[in-house]
């Protein structure tokens, strides 16, 4: 287990109010994420995983409870933690370079150039510097978005089903890429997915959320070295344990 606490959520409650009706989404969520940890959050769709991530990013304020990062209470969006969504959020009016440069507006020119070059290389978009998102494939767009997020050197990368809209082959490549990038950059990663295999392949630890109103039902330490063999007994054991925790049978 990592020693330093990067993010802690304590007694988080969150309700949506719509047409006078109140829906409780988060119900007493408690979670601690370590410095440099890769945490996956899985749960049934619509349970509130994205809501939880939005409170971590500071886009939503909890009704009660608090999120602390490095000991300070989160009160709004901040470039030290970047949220990447499932829908392509890269700006279609900017080139690949322009998108990566977007968050660097306070940096001097030379530093901007250096980071652009570095992150284009890192996510494998070399040769596409001047291309617009419309010319990129879905996987490339998602890599660009990760690059744009990493370029501001955030402490925490919050990923909300980032590969959910990609085809299954691209998704597999993207997982490998993300692990490679994470090993180089060592940011803390919180990755929301509804895909249990994805979670077990990527994470140091998997947090399983319950149905709505949701809380963290159980966390699983994934004690398998990378690269992971997805037919190894330990892998299947952990995967089945998570399936069971979610209350899903292992057969279709």
């Amino acid at each position: 287990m990592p020693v330093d606490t990067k993010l802690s959520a304590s007694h988080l409650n969150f309700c949506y109010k719509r047409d006078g009706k109140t829906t409780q989404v988060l119900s007493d969520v408690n979670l601690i994420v370590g410095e440099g940890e890769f945490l996956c959050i899985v749960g049934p769709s619509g349970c509130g995983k994205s809501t939880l991530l939005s409170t971590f990013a500071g886009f939503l304020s909890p009704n009660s409870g608090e999120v602390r990062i490095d000991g300070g209470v989160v009160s709004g969006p901040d470039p030290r933690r970047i949220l990447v969504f499932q829908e392509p959020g890269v700006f279609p009016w900017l080139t690949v370079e322009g998108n990566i440069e977007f968050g660097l507006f306070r940096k001097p020119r030379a530093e901007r150039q250096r980071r652009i070059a570095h992150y284009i290389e890192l996510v494998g978009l070399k040769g596409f510097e001047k291309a617009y998102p419309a010319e990129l494939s879905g996987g490339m767009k998602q890599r660009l978005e990760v690059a744009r997020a990493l370029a501001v050197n955030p402490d925490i990368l919050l990923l909300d089903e980032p590969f959910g809209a990609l085809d299954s082959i691209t998704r597999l490549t993207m997982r490998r890429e993300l692990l490679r990038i994470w090993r180089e950059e060592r940011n803390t990663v919180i990755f929301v997915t509804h895909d249990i295999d994805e979670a077990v392949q990527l994470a140091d630890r998997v947090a399983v959320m319950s149905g709505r109103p949701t809380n963290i039902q159980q966390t699983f330490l994934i004690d398998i070295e990378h690269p992971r063999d997805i037919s190894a007994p330990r892998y299947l054991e952990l995967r089945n344990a998570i399936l069971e925790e979610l209350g899903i049978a292992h057969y279709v």
Partner: protein
Amino acid sequence: MPVRLRPIVFIVALLVLWHFAVIRSSTHLLPGPMEALGGIADLVRHGLLVKYVTASLFRVTWGFVAATVLAIPLGLVIGWYRRFEMALNPLIQIFRPISPLAWIPMAILWFGVGDLSAVFLIFISCFFPLLLTAINSVQRVPAVYVNAGRNFGMGPASLIYRVLYPAALPQLITGLRITLGIAWLVVVAAEMISVNSGLGFLIVDARNAGNRYDLVVAGMLIIGAIGCLLDLGMGSFQLDYSEN
């Protein structure tokens, strides 16, 4: 036959058809193409063509530019602040369906017979469509873009300039294009009543002063051609980020 030639061939065929149909019918319900062409030649000879076209374009330009300068920033702000929109929307909805032509008496009362009246009418006809375009275009900007801007630490000013404006731009340009078309429709009506020059005036005057229907049709053709060119011009600015 090259594809690009087809519309031209078709137009020529229609002109020929028009020509012979008018000759055969031997009525005076419609001047033929040769007469209309003669009308245009007449206008050129008297130096009226350039004068009237310039006058009409001048009014459209000022009315359109004034409406754009006021309506677009106002609409962007109204669209961005939901509360503004809720407060102003009923008012906008009441003013919007009033035909610009209904403003003609007020325009003449306020600005007299002259350019200013016509410019005002163009302004009114452009202002509400542009305001609504700007409001809608801001509201349609996907939340992911705005959130990304906020996430990277942008304040309201850079958020508007670096995210909202570029994201809304394609829709704004489409709105400007459609509105310029409206302005060109309205200028003809405005000129029929409130001024003594321009293409709208030409049409009324040709009829009143001696039933010169050749000049009427000539004026119509010129209006059509210029409207078409204006639309082509605006169309060349059109943006679509999904097909770079």
